[in-house]
């Protein structure tokens, strides 16, 4: 039963016309990866960059909730072409799950990722942002395996608990020599240099903090409101300082 897997042969070609691929990841869940990924995609697209967003959190997709994506579906054209929502070419498994639970095991996850990468026709993009699930499981390993040019943007919170898990992701990325843009501290509440100092010890760039935003919840699902949040302002300040 040693069949040849054909799909992986076209993945590079599907991603060829994308200038930069950024995977927003964390060793820890609930730290704001999806908010950072969606807001970053939105912000880049508003600046005039051709931007795509791929939600690879197959168990808990949430980018569509954050961006208020409704009633759209990919077109079929030599593959599937992600619809453009709020200026972002958006791909997510929700088009196919009807928002039902998705009880996948590891090999299924890999198979889905290969399928998505093999059939999605992104066209040419300046940026593709990937919203990653937490941890260093199948999705992370598959992004590393198949998306050779992806750079990681790591998110943590000020908590030692988050940092403990984030450090493990950083370890793996460094061990595999995967480019990391740096680490964003999200949900910061008061001035503290703890995370900054800890990140610097790992040799990675500490990119800055996004403050806890009391009003963020109210902006979820509404891109106009999202653009005006202090979350977006803080994120934009970070983006302005770095060379994505």
């Amino acid at each position: 039963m040693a069949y040849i897997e054909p799909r992986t042969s076209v993945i590079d070609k599907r991603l060829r016309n994308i200038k930069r691929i950024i995977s927003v990841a964390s060793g820890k869940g609930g730290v704001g990866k999806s908010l950072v990924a969606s807001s970053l995609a939105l912000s880049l697209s508003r600046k005039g960059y051709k931007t795509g967003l791929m939600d690879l959190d197959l168990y808990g997709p949430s980018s569509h909730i954050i961006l208020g994506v409704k009633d759209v579906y990919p077109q079929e054209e030599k593959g599937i072409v992600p619809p453009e929502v709020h200026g972002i070419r958006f791909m997510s498994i929700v088009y196919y799950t009807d928002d039902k639970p998705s009880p996948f095991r590891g090999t299924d996850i890999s198979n889905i990722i290969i399928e998505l990468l093999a059939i999605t026709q992104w066209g040419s993009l300046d940026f593709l942002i990937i919203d990653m699930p937490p941890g260093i499981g199948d999705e992370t390993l598959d992004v590393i395996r198949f998306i050779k040019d992806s750079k990681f943007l790591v998110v943590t919170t000020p908590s030692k608990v988050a940092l403990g898990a984030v450090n493990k992701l950083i370890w793996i990325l460094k061990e595999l020599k995967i480019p990391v843009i740096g680490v964003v501290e999200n949900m910061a509440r008061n001035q503290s240099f703890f995370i900054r100092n800890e990140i610097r010890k790992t040799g990675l760039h500490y990119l800055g903090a996004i403050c806890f935003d009391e009003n963020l919840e109210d902006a979820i699902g509404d891109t106009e409101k999202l653009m005006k949040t202090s979350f977006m302002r803080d994120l934009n300040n970070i983006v302005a300082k770095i060379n994505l």
Partner: protein
Amino acid sequence: MHEWALAESIVDTAVDTAKRERLRTIDEIIILIGELQQIERDIFEFALKEITKTRKTIGFKKTIFNIKIEKSRLKCRVCGYTWSFNEIRKNLSEEESEAIHFIPEIAFVHTRCPRCNSPDFEIISGRGIAIKSIRGSR
């Protein structure tokens, strides 16, 4: 037409193989199409023909695309029951069936074990496309 994207992956795998094995022509590719993916065979075959015309470095003019449909077998991890996708297809809406066509693993979202209703089953065979063998000449 996502058959096109999959057909392209077959042709490009053959091209890669030809380069690696230094084959000048590809004589036969045995392709399995899993029942779960419900590929439109006509479109798929048409795409194979069209795409090979554009891959001029390797001889594809006489290639036989030997396409075999692989029956699906699903097995419940909880109760051990086995079934085929065809048996349960009639219970699916058109949208659900279409979603499985794009990504066969979506079967875990829209279908259950017919005996114990568990979503924890395995796709033993008949998932999607695979290449069984590629034969060519130097």
